Structure formats: C-alpha cells, structure tokens
C-alpha cells in the first residue's frame, strides 16, 4: 500500500480540524437574550424553592422540568460572583468549588436563582427562586443504612457515611464485602441501630444479628477506637433493640422488645410490626453490668424508645399499657397507643425519680414514638401516629414538637401541648429524626415522594421552634432519586467521620456470630430473617 502524500495528510488534518471547530461552535453555551419573563417559578426537581440551607451544604443540583432545548441558570448573591450553569437536557450540575465559595460568603443572606429555558419561541425567564442561607452550619456527616424496602428477609446491608459538604459517600460497614484482618467477611449479618455518643464517633454502638437463625443478636460497642461485643440478654429476655447513650458515655439505656411482624392484605402499607412486650434496661459501660429499675420496666406497661436528655438528668421514653396477654390479642394491634413520659435520674447518686407523663396518648389522640431531645434541651421532637410503635410503616406518622420551656413542673402533662409541625409534615410517613449538635437543624426520614422509599430531608429550626421548608439530601446526579430503588434508613447526624477500623468491627461481628444459641432459634413471626 502506498503511503499517503503530504498533501493528502494536510487535507485530512485540516478537515478534521474544521469538523472539530464546527462541533465546538455548535455546542458552545448560549446565554439567554431577549428572554420573555413569566411570573411563575420554574418546575424543578427536587424543589428547592424557598428553603433554608446551611452554609456548608453540597451543591443543590436539580433538574428543570420545563420544556426547552437549552437551559441556563444563574445563581447569585449580593456581593459575590454569580455562578452560571448551562444545560441541554435540563440537568443543572453546579460546580462544587464555586458553590462552596458563594454559599460560604452568603451566610445569613440569600441566593437568587434565575432560571431560563429556550423554547422554539425563544428564551423564557422564570420568577426568581430564592434560597436562604442560615448562619449556622449543619453537622458535616450523616450516617445511614441504604437498603431495599425490607419485608421479612435481608441480604446485603451497608452502613454509609455521607459528607454533607460534598457528594462523597463512604461505606462504613458492608455485611458482605467488609473483611477482618484475615480476609473473612461478616457473612451477611444484619447490622442496624448505629448510635453515636453526643454526635461524635469516639463512642458508638451497633446492633447486629447473625445470618444464621440459631445465632444470637449482639451489640457492638466501640470505645476509644476499640470494638467489643456486648451481650445484653438476661434471664431469657431478648437482647437490646433501641439504644440511647447517657451524655457521660458511661451508661446506656436500651429497650428489649418482643416484636411480631404481620402483613396487611389491603391498604397502602403492607407491613406491620407490633410490639407485644417491651421493657427498658441499663448497661454500665465501665463495669459491664446489665440491670434495670422498676420505673422503666413495669410488668403492666410497655416501655420503649429510650432517649436521654442532653444533661443526663432525664430519661425520656414511650410507654403504653401492656395488652398482649390474652390469646389472639394481636387482633387489637391498632388500639395500642404510647404516652410520652420521662423519669429523672441523678447520675452522681445513681438515683431514679418517678415517671412523669408529658403527653397522654388518650388526650393527644395519637401514639407517641421516637422522642429525641434537642441538644440545647429546649424541645422534644417525636412522631405521632394512629397507633403502635413503628412510625415508618404508618402513613399517618407526623412530626411533633414539645416545648419543654412551657412545661409546668407541677402540672407536667397537663401543661404540655405538642405542636404538629405542619411546616414540614406531609401526607405520608414522616419519621426517624436526628438533631444536629447545635440544635438548629433536623434531619428526618420521609416517604412523601412515593409512599414506599424513605428519603432524607433537612430542615432549619429557629430558636423558637419554628421549622423552615425541608429540602431533600442533595445528590450529584440530579436524576438520582428518579431511579433510586433503595430506602434511606436510620439516619444520624454526626460532627466527625467514623474512624473505627472496619476490620475490628468485622472481627467482633464474627466472634458474635460464632456463639451458639442457648435457647431455640428465632420464632417464625420474628421480623427480619436472614435470607439463607
């Protein structure tokens, strides 16, 4: 074959350059000109219009849902250089560095988003979208489980840590892929109920259930970077479920629950979890002693969802009359309602006071679950729903706020009027909330999007307890939530990253799994069985 001549080569190179130039010109971003203004806001997904964001949040990437061939968004703030984003398909991906600089310089101020869409008739400009920037930052990390909607079986579970300042997500623990130092995995053990002391990660707890039915659930306690197993069973009682750290870090309150899973044959929500019996217990971290006190383990009451106050002087929890003694009592599952109560505790003297009812379910009309006290000890945030103690499965679940400053110490419950947070609730399940360490932000789970998959929402809280419009956890891909078939579960805000070595966690999990049960295997109606 003859080698091509110089003229031919030059022609080929020139032609290629011409084509490349034409392509570059064709794809050059186009700024709007002579745009026609409309008075309405653009349709966006997610809808970030009117929200309040922390100054350290990742970019709020979104999609413009308006018809158009090209899109242009300008994000501006007073006294700062604007960000301009061009798009052909409506996906707006905001450059991270520019965003960080703009938002950080706009604390206490406002961002104005100008959205343009090019239609066949020309450019259209929509009403400016305004987003407030709070002065207070949010805790930079959130830890959650990302799982499919679980009914009875589990298989692959991961606990993930997301940096809220970026889109970085790290797997903290993977029940299949995380290995110990010998290269062995956790063999699909269930991992759940990660609980952090004072929004830090130096001390944390993890609940695990081995993948074999005859094996024993256990707690994994991490303290000073070391992981060890804690067996919270006692006298044949089931192991710990819900856990709360005393702020001193030396005491744990936990619940022991006898949960039964059932399934509705009609209605929007198929799953049901019923608590037949529960009590609270205490674990002394230094001595390893497990014990309880009568105030939190009455035989005629169900006690669950322990939550310590930030000063450690009160233990809040949900409490309901015992109900499941008679046969087929489970038929009355939808008649059980929990009160919100608290009991005082003197840590120095190790003395407990009397239980005080703050919200009576009978008067309130709803069941109370998942109480969480704000770090500034001003408020108690909890879920109120039609019945029972599993709000994520209750479309009726909504968030309520109790202002502790309004409590009359003499009247207690009589003076407490929880406020329904209409500014953040939706028509579907809103539940599992976590306060930021500065009490200015709340993260909660909501199924408002589709009723099936829980997503994480953030909302700013004013010191007087007024919440701002919540916004969904931002993702790098604006279309992420359109095809995400996983649910965000058990989200907790933390101030620092998890640093415990995953190899140690897996080692302890394997040690826990290796123990054989002294009792029979889990009953058939126990929820959440291993897949194999």
């Amino acid at each position: 074959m003859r080698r091509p001549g110089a003229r031919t080569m030059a022609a080929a190179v020139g032609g290629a350059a011409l084509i490349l130039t034409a392509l570059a010109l064709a794809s050059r971003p186009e700024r709007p000109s002579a745009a026609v203004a409309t008075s309405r806001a653009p349709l966006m997904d997610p809808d970030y219009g009117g929200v309040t964001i922390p100054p350290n949040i990742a970019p709020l990437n979104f999609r413009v849902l308006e018809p158009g061939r090209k899109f242009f968004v300008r994000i501006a703030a007073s006294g700062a250089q604007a960000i301009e984003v061009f798009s052909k398909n409506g996906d707006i991906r905001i450059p991270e560095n520019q965003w960080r600089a703009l938002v950080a310089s706009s604390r206490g101020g406002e961002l104005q988003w100008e959205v343009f869409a090019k239609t066949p008739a020309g450019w259209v400009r929509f009403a400016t979208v305004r987003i407030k920037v709070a002065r207070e930052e949010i805790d930079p990390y959130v830890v959650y489980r990302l799982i499919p909607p679980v009914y009875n079986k589990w298989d692959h579970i991961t606990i993930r840590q997301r940096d809220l300042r970026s889109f970085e997500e790290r797997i903290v623990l993977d029940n299949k892929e995380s290995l110990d130092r010998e290269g062995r995995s956790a063999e699909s053990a269930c991992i759940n109920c990660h609980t952090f002391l004072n929004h830090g990660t130096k001390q944390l707890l993890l609940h695990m259930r081995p993948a074999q039915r005859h094996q024993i659930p256990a707690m994994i306690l991490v303290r000073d970077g070391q992981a060890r197993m804690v067996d919270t069973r006692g006298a044949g009682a089931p192991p710990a479920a819900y856990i709360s750290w005393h702020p001193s870090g030396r005491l744990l309150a936990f619940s022991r629950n006898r949960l039964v899973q059932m399934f509705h044959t009609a209605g929007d929500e198929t799953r049901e979890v019923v608590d037949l019996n529960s009590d609270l217990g205490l674990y002394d971290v230094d001595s390893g002693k497990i014990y309880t006190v009568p105030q939190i383990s009455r035989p005629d009451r169900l006690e669950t969802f322990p939550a310590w106050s930030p000063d450690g002087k009160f233990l809040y929890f949900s409490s309901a009359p015992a109900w499941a003694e008679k046969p087929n009592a489970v038929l009355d599952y939808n008649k059980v309602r929990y009160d919100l109560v608290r009991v005082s505790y003197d840590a120095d003297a190790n003395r407990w006071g009397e239980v005080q009812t703050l919200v009576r379910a009978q008067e309130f009309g709803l069941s109370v679950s998942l109480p969480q006290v704000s770090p500034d000890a001003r408020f108690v945030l909890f879920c109120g729903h039609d019945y029972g103690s599993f709000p994520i499965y209750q479309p009726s679940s909504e968030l309520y706020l109790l202002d502790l400053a309004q409590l009359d110490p003499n009247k207690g419950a009589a003076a407490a009027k929880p406020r329904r947070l209409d500014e953040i609730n939706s028509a579907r399940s809103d539940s599992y909330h976590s306060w930021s360490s500065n009490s200015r932000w709340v993260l909660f789970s909501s199924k408002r999007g589709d009723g099936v998959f829980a997503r994480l929402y953030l909302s700013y809280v004013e010191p007087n307890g007024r919440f701002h419009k919540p916004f969904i956890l931002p993702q790098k891909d604006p279309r992420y939530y359109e095809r995400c078939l996983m649910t965000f579960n058990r989200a907790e805000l933390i101030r620092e990253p998890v640093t415990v070595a995953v190899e140690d966690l897996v080692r302890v999990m394997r040690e826990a799994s290796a123990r054989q049960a002294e009792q029979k295997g889990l009953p058939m109606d126990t929820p959440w069985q291993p897949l194999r």
Partner: protein
Amino acid sequence: MSFDSERSLKRWRPSGDCVPAALFFLAVFLYVRNGIDPRLMHHWQGPVFYTYPGFAGEFFRYPGGFAEYLYGLIAQCYAWRDWGALVLTAEIAAACALGALLVRRLHGKTRLLLALTPALFLLYQANLYYDGTPVRIALVIGLGCAVAFGRLMPFANRPAVWCGLFALFLAFSYYLGGMALVFFAPVAACALWVRAAPNWSKAARFLLCGSVLAVAAGLPFAVETYRLLEVRWPTASWFLSSDVRRIVVFWGLYLWTAALAGLSLRRVATVSAGAAASGGAGSAGRAGASAAKRAQSSQALSAAAPGAAWKRLGRYAPTALLFGALAGVMGYSYQAAGRDRRLAALDYFTWSENWDAAVRTAEALKPGEFNTLSRYQVNLALHEMGRMGDEMFRFPQDGGPLLELQVNSFLPYMLHLTNMCLRLGRVNEAEHYGSEALVFSKTDPRVYRLLALTYLVKGQTEAARKFLTVLSYSPLDRRWADGKLQSLQQDPQLTGDEQVQELRRRRLQTDDMLAVWQQANHSGPDVERLLLNLLERDSSNRMAFEFLMGYYLLNRDLQGFRNLATRIAEITGPGYLRPGGGRRTPRHYQEALVLFNEMTGSSGKISGMEIEPETVSRMARFKQVVARAGGRRAAMLEAREGFGDTYFYYYAFGSEDVQ
C-alpha cells in the same frame, strides 16, 4: 519455531479447513437453536443489562467485571431464538478462531481437531441453562491476549521487555476477564520461554519446564481463590465448584490451553534437538530444518505405494473424530439436560403467556418432574385457556393448585408467586413477595416489572414510576416501560388500561392479617379463606373460582365443592360456553357433582350446572372397571387407560404413579 513467521499464515489453505469448519458451526447453530433454545437460557439466567449512568461502573470495580458486563449485554440477544443461536454460535466460533490462530502459529499448520475442541466444551456448557458464567467471553479475552502478546513480542529483542509485556497482558486479562488469566497465562508463558530458552542451558530449561508445569497445575486454584477474595460476592466459582458438570467444562478448557502450551514446548524441544545435531542456532535455521523435514515426510507419503490409501484416509480421521465428538456431546448433553430443558421451557412459556406451548410442554414432562411450581404453571395455563375445569386431571396433581405463600430463594418461584398474587387480586401479597424477590434478585427487570404493575394497580403511581424509569434503561423492557410512563402522563388514573382496571376490580379491600391465621392453628395461610375473600370482593373472579374448585377437588372436599358450585352461574369464560352458544359445565365439575350425588344420595340441581348423560355413563363404566378388578393396584392399572384423566380416577386413587 518462530512466533512471528508470516510464512505460517501463507501455508494456510482456506479450502481445506473452511468447509469442515463451516459444517461444524452450522451443526452447532442448529443444535443451539433447536436443541438448547437460547430463549430458555435467557429466561433461566435472567441476564441483567441497563444503560443508565453508573451501571457499567459497578462492574469495573473488580476483576472479571468487564466480562460479566459484556455477557449481560450479549446475553440480551438470547431472548430471540434465531438471533440468540447465531450470537452464541459466533461466540464459540470466535473462541475457536483464536485457538486456531494460536495452533497455527505454534504448530505451523492448522489442526482442526485441536482448534475446535473448545467448541465441544462450550456447547456442553450452554446446556447448563442455569449457568451464566461468562466463560466464552473469558476464553476470547484470554486467547486474544495471548495472540496479541505473541504479535508484539517480535518488536523487542530484550527478555526484560518480554517479561514486562507478559506482566502487562497478565494484568490486563485478569482485570478484564478475571478467570481469563488461566487461558492466557500458560500459552503466553510458554511462548515467552520459547523465545528466551533456546539460549539457556539444558539444566535451566529443564528446571524452568518443571516450574511451569507445577505452576500450571495450581494456577486455576490460585487464581480462583484470590479472585473470590477480591470479588467477594459469590460470583460462581469455576474450578472449585461442587457442580461436576461445570468443573468438566472449565477444566477441559484449561487443559486444552495447556495442550496448546505443550505444543510450543514440544516444538522447542524438537527444534533444539535439531539445532544441537546440526551445530546451528537461530530461529531461521530451526524453521528451515522443520520445513525440510515436513517436505521429506510429504514426499515419502506420496511415494509409498502400499498403505498410501490408508494414510490418505488417515488424514480425514481427525475431522471424523471431531464430528463424532460433536455428535456425542450433542446427544449426551441433550439427554442429560432433558429435565432442566423441559422445566425451563414450561417456566418460559408460562412467563411469556404462551399458554398453548406451556400445556404442550407440560405434556412432555415425566411424572416425577412435576413439582409445586410446574403444577401451578400447568394449572395456570389451563385456566388461561379456559380448560382447567376440563383437563387439570390429565396431569399429576399432588398437592395444592396454588403456590405456597412463603419466601423461597429460588427466583423463578418468587416471580410466579408475585405474579400469582397479582392475578388473583391479592395485590398487597404481590407487593410483599415481589419486594422479597428484590432482596436476592438485585436488579432483575422481571421483578421490577411485577412491582411496577403492582404499584400501578395500588394507585401508588409515583412508586411505579421509579421502577418504570429504571426499566426504561433496559433494552428489552424499554418499550413496555416507556409505554406505561406515557400512559401515566396522559391518563394518571390509567382508566384506559384494561389489565390495571381488571386487577383493581379484583383487588382486596378488606384488611386482614396473615399472622392471625397462623395463630389460629393454621400452619400456613388458609388457602380456602384466601380465595373466598377474593370471590366475596369480585364474584366474577374466575381465577379465584377455578383454583378454589381445584383446591376442593384435590382435597376431596365434595361438600366444599358443592357449596362453591352455586357461584358457577356468575363465572364466564370460554370453558363455560358452548361453541354454538349456551352454557356448559366443565367436565371435572360434572364428574365431581355426580360423585357428590352418588355419595350423598342427593339429586339436587345447581343453577348454572348441567350434568351431561355421558358423564353419568362414564362414571358407571368406571365403577364397573374398578369392581371387576382384583385389588386396588389392579384396579388402578385397569382404570388408568380409559379414566386416568377423570376426577373419578383421582378421587379413587390420587396421583400415585402406577409404574
């Protein structure tokens, strides 16, 4: 021997090898199309492939992920019979072509038997419907890397460069194909040695030869053990599996590559011996010596008078052996995979709602091959064709007519369970079991499809949209998903969607809790109650009616049957209408009613049910046959011929196999 000799290519005579190769692959194509049926492979394995951003990236995180990704793409073609057979044959041919290239380079001429040997193993592996291991792709990657390595070596004259190149291709084949490493390493290592070794001493060559053999023997174990650590998920193991059939395939292919490597070693030994004898050295000298030797051999052949004919005949022996082996593999694997094939076909035709084919396939099943799933499938096919009430007892019925409402780790079971609940109208159970299937099926589009439809029926359209959006990125489901999304856009209530509307009519509105039944001394869900609830919701629910009838008949509960039969007037469908108009009663229901009247002395009529005289007389004949037979077994044998497909026979003898 020279790896870079272009003369070896010129020696290839297309007309000599092409015809038998073409015939060979034509036979492979026909067998794959008609004997294996790629549609069954596709259905059984459920290969997953999506085009949404991030899908591919999940595969490239671990060694061998690329091969699995490519397999997922290629296997989409198996959804069609002809196209799938063509693609699968092409995959096998590609592997053999690379093998042929290696054989030619290593041996100087094509050896058809050796080059096409992998096709026999790959064809056998294709009969293992459940096995989605990307072995064909891994083989192509491994051999392709070996060929490329051989082509690049001549461009450098330094052993260090060769070793570097070897390491590079080793890593490349491992990353792309995972286990492809075992197909690349032996051949390439020997090629490397062939280049370097001629200058070494005899002792060094001997030592290295031994080392290579030892490594080669342990290579599959080592790679698989380490790869499983890296991959962690239980991607099917190859050489350490307990499945004997798979082990035969993978070890066979590995030993074949080892044989290729052995060719190069033998050739070096031959050339080295020749070089030592002549005192010469260098690859050109060796090539010349071997060429001269073959020329001499050829002359000797043609010159010899007696036995020449036998020797000429002997040239065709390898081809005959090859085709004989092919016939043997086809025959054996077709026979050995018969059960899997029949069950896979029944599952496939049921899933794709080809009811006629499903029934015909069920007729080919052996009695021992009926299980809970296959029984349900044939009953469903008969129901859909309006023949359940006439023909269900043509097939072995041993157990309930429905699938058991419990989680099973066998994905086809869960798919049909979810589908069954949806068809019946137990939509919440469909959501339950479909979601359970999600846990271990991961991203199977069939599960997504079922859940999308479930949520559409429930009116939870936003949840349905998510599944439909994901499905719009699946090549085979895109059209269906986009159609549904468009329908939702135009008609959010889906009032024009007949399937959704009918399922909504059937959907239970009364809440109940399954665990309650369990506590009421039932070991499992109460089938009777399950189906009666549905009929109370929609009295025209023919599926609930017919399966409940089947339940009563199978349990010999004639009173229950009689009570339910009063609803028959509300049931419509082809099985209840005569061709010329007017209603008819399915045969088994007539038989059961005749039995009931006989046993209770009742003669009451049921509105909508008619007993034909022929049914009464058939029962009389059945009783005569049974009465004159000496003993139960004899009666079974006697009655089976004329009454084996009647309810009379089942009521008397069950589904016991008389053989």
